[in-house]
């Protein structure tokens, strides 16, 4: 594997290999000396055109724990003919002789475009509303760890429900591509205004009725809804959204005993997810965060070690 551009384009073997290695990386997180020499001398640049403290620090830690040199570049998103073109930004960095660029950008497909311009390995840390592959991998990894710890088997045959602003979400696209490959069944729940066009052709079921779907769920993944979308007419009011599509305290009662709650963060407490849900024992949100470093270490290993 030279690049990680998305779940699309990964083979099943790639996915399994990355998840298997991620499992071994947890051990490093428990040690007093959080260091493996494996990527010593490799250089990884975090090129973030969109800010994200969480994802960026996760990649930075992953690189450093593998002894790679890691730097962060906060690039300015430039619209056409203002300042440096995206291509110039990429090729300038590449010319410094770095090994990998972890890139986040508001433009869907931008990381794939960049891969055609540089010699370095490109890692997609989120491109527009297209994909966020390491997020999907860490989500699956966190779910698998939870199931194993509770003797619930694997993702095979599990029901994963994903709820929220799916139209503007790259996380849902990557998860919808990954989870069925691992044997899970995915149901998307969103108001009609927040569904991606052509979602009927995806390998998922779609529902507008959260209450009907929750009792069958093994995992409920809540995705964030931005308040500003109200101004675009995507939903009439925050309370209507929450009452019809939010994971309220009352909805927690409908869940199976072992069902867990996931959220990629950051949370909009009170909008898509209640504090009761976010803070409940079912929440694996913090496990997702620790899974994130392990998965990203695994990705860096698979792309850069050999």
């Amino acid at each position, binding site marked *: 594997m030279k690049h990680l551009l998305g779940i699309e384009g990964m083979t099943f073997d790639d996915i399994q290999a990355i998840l298997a290695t991620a499992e071994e990386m947890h051990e490093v997180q428990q040690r007093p000396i959080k260091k493996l020499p494996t990527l010593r001398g490799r250089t990884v640049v975090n090129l973030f055109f969109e800010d994200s403290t969480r994802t960026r620090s996760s990649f930075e830690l992953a690189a450093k724990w593998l002894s790679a040199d890691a730097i962060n570049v906060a690039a300015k998103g430039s*619209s056409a003919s203002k300042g440096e*073109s*995206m291509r110039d930004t990429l090729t300038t960095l590449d010319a410094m002789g770095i090994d990998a660029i972890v890139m986040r950008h508001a*433009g*869907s*497909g931008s990381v794939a*475009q960049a891969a055609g311009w540089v010699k370095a390995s490109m890692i997609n840390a989120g491109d527009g*509303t297209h994909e966020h592959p390491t997020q999907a991998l860490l989500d699956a990894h966190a779910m698998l760890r939870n199931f194993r710890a509770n003797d619930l088997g694997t993702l095979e045959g599990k029901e994963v429900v994903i709820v929220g602003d799916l139209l503007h979400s790259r996380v849902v696209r990557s998860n919808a591509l990954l989870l069925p490959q691992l044997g899970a069944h995915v149901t998307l729940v969103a108001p009609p205004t927040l569904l*991606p066009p*052509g979602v009927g052709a995806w390998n998922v079921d779609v529902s507008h009725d959260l209450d009907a779907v929750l009792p069958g769920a093994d995992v409920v993944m809540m995705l964030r809804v931005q308040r500003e979308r109200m101004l675009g007419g995507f939903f009439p009011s925050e309370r209507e959204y929450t009452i019809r599509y939010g994971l309220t305290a009352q909805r927690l009662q409908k869940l199976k005993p072992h069902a867990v709650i996931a959220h990629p963060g950051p949370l909009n407490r009170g909008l898509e997810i209640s504090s009761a849900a976010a803070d409940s024992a079912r929440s694996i949100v913090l496990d997702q965060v620790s899974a994130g470093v392990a998965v990203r270490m695994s990705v860096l290993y698979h792309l850069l070690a050999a």
Partner: protein
Amino acid sequence: MTDFIISGPEFADGTRRDLFISGGLLVDERPHGAETINADGLMALPGLVDLHTHLREPGREDAETVESGSLAAARGGFTCVHAMANTQPVTDTAENAEHIADLGRAAGHVQVVPIGAITKGLAGRELAELGLMHQSRAGVRVFSDDGMCVMDSALMRRAFEWVKPFDGVLAQHAQDAGLAGPGACCHEGELSGRLGLAGWPPVAESVIIARDAQLAEATRSRLHVCHVTTAEGVDVIRWAKTRGINVTAEATPHHLYLTTSEVIGYDTVYKVNPPLRTDEHVEAIRAALADGTIDIVGTDHAPHAPQDKDHAFADARPGMLGLEQALSVVMETMLSTGRLDWAGVVDRMSAAPARIGRTTGQGRPLAVGEPANLVLVDPARRAAVDRNASASLSRNNPYHGRDLPDPVELTMWRGRVTHRR
């Protein structure tokens, strides 16, 4: 000025005769001391007329100039181009329009007719000086805010009313700004959802066409719809024409040939506004061009420098080159499929555009007394398109590497050869 004898060309009606050119006109007597051009195996057609070209001068001379753009036009078999108003500064005054006409004259490759903006600065708020642009040396007849859609219905109505006395025509870029905002960059559908690109739904085109057609009806003025791309848009135009509304429409070569699946891979050369659409829409456009619901082919030639395109797909400037391959693509999609014959091609690419633009001396039949505006075409020759072998200053050519007809042998404008292979 050289006289010419063009010997043995075939005409669109299938007949064959020699053409005599003297003093810039087609004459009936064989001139003496003339240069003979052997046109055996070639067709002689009226020079092509483009109602929709972007020459980036003034403002973006790094991407194209009137000189380079009109040279590209001559290579494409054109003898006239209408230059859209979205330059920097915008062509919204008589002086700006005259300046562009002067540049065209100085370049001397094709007749360059400036298009005037409908609104000042293309801002969509106040009318531009439509009448003064018309009465200037530039003689503007076609007005367009292309690039932008005039969203204000009341303003659009006033514009229709203002141009009516001098038979002006409003050419609308039909894109409802609410339904397809500035970020919309890909035909809304399964592919846009999968690629994560903001969708541009067909209804954003058809609602504006419907509104404008009804305004044209109410004011009894003329509407021209730029670059129609949807089956829905075609249906509205068909309805308007059956009602006797004075509406004409245009299709671009790329919307006859390319589909939205080109966007897989996010190559920004395929980013264009309105976007490439699915097979069913391409088919609807071809059928409409064949039956005349769509009246003309307009290239929407849109040169862009690398720094305009080397961005994330959503951020790149939309637009493709079109002048040099326009005839090739029309031959490939309409002629060789039997949907148009040569007479039809001449109508859609020469006569009808000149009629809509009221451009005298262009789009005329090849008959004695008419200006010698013509193109000699080899109907059989093909070649792989090389984007680097272009007169344009830009290289955003979507046909690069594709095997297409390579027809243009010679272009003549007012009796002067402007391009020879």
